[in-house]
């Protein structure tokens, strides 16, 4: 019981109930779809890349509170970042939710994403938190994959 509040922090509940940057993005020139086989969660991330920089990013889909809040906070966190910066933030976030590895000395600050620190105590929920990030990674990859990415 004590850990539950660590998982569902107020900011997470807020973003899950009122996701930011939710909906289509007609200007998008990159997109990818993510699918969590375990629970059927789906997320589509659309990115408008301007050169190497994320000018806009929005998402659509349905999922649990953790995956929805994660996608919502992702859109706030990577807007304006270069692909390399977004990728570094993904690595930092992945370390946070899996509880594995030490952040590199030059790792970017987590900012609001730190609210996901409780996820590492819930191994079954790591995939919920990381689905949107895997999907972003795929959207920003040089050669987009033909099929939906999964967290497997």
């Amino acid at each position, binding site marked *: 019981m004590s850990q539950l509040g660590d*998982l569902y922090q107020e900011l997470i509940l807020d973003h899950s109930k009122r996701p930011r940057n939710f909906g289509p993005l007609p200007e998008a020139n990159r997109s990818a779809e993510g699918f969590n086989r375990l629970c*059927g969660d789906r997320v589509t991330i659309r990115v408008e890349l301007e050169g190497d920089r994320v000018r806009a990013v929005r998402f659509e889909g349905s999922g649990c509170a953790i995956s929805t809040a994660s996608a919502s906070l992702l859109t706030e966190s990577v807007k304006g970042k270069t692909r390399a910066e977004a990728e570094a933030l993904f690595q930092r976030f992945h370390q946070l939710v899996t509880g594995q590895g030490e952040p590199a000395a030059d790792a970017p600050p987590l900012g609001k994403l730190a609210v996901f620190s409780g996820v590492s105590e*819930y191994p079954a929920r790591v995939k919920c938190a990381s689905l949107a990030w895997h999907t972003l990674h795929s959207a920003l990859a040089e050669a987009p994959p033909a099929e939906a990415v999964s967290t497997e």
Partner: protein
Amino acid sequence: MAATTETSVSYDVERVRGDFPLLRQLQDGVPVAYLDNAATTQKPQAVLDALMGFYTEDCSNIHRSVHRLGERATARYEAARAAARRFLNASSEREILFVRGTTEAINLVAQSFGRSQLRPGDEVLITGLEHHSNIVPWQLACEASGATLQVAPLNDRGEVELEAFAQKLGPRTKIAAFAHISNALGTVNPVAEMVALARARGVATLVDGAQAAPHTRLDVRALDCDFYALSGHKMYGPTGIGVLYGKEAWLERLPPWQGGGDMIRSVTFEKTTYNELPYKFEAGTPNIAAAIGLGAGIAYLENLGLERIAAYERELLAYGTSQLEAIPGLRLIGTARHKAGVLSFVVEGVHPHDVGTVLDSLGVAVRAGHHCAQPVMERFHIAATTRASLGLYNTRAELDRLAQGLRRVQEMFT
């Protein structure tokens, strides 16, 4: 036995609970309310003792040792087969095959039957209610043989309607395979009528009894199905053991599935003669300990009495249904008129995984997901449900904790 204060059924649930060591476990100071019995059941001390007894007193391989240990191990293994025969009311122990579980049982039939009986253009009939383990083996068999898979649809309650099932039985249907009880929804299929319809058209039948074995008195002779599959671990026995019942005439006719030791009579490089039933289908050293444990589990169920268990669980299900129906914003998925042991539901605006995590924090263990039955989820236009599934040791107090937990879920997320 003392009547419990909880129900009108003469059934001492507290005494039953005392038989299950795991149920004493405290989570954050409260006993775990284990409501995930459709996934697997907890084990009574008698089953644990049987497992330990084999390894500490009789451990040996079976059917091939001249020493006393081997004779005792063989006797205990075969006694478990005899228990399974009685449990299913099969005619002969030759019809009782030990397998790893229901999944392996269905794969055995799908492959052996598929290889020998299915031709291009033939049809295999399943229903919209099936677990993936009663879908995928048939897809593989169809792919290999050129047969096609037909599916009898579900109605809005999550029931297979007999007329729709009968309509799908065509002149090319060779086998119909269907669940006795649905793991995802708890629907009890009209299996006797379904078997009769298939038999009248000369169609073989396989019944997936994984969910039925712990809840219902079984009688394969009365049912008259050709194959019946069950899993030990869903009926208070160990994991890694299950039973495939097959009518002797079919088992004689079907080719062996796996080759190896114990399934042969004689081997030369030119020709192998297969062993008699049931050993023809039991290649290699089986899970001896688990089979013996299953025998103990069967004895435990029979001692309590399947009818009394079913009556107790029926009252528990009715109570749980009424408790959940009283929660606004909660929708039960699967409202069959004839149901057993399963409360599958969605809470409006809340994902089942969040429901599951919050309930777990309160010591209530349920399953959240698609329950290996994605087509069932699609039928109801949902990705997943939360499922509370009942067993013979559950109580009304545990269902109260479930309902209270769900109110807490709604406070948090809506």
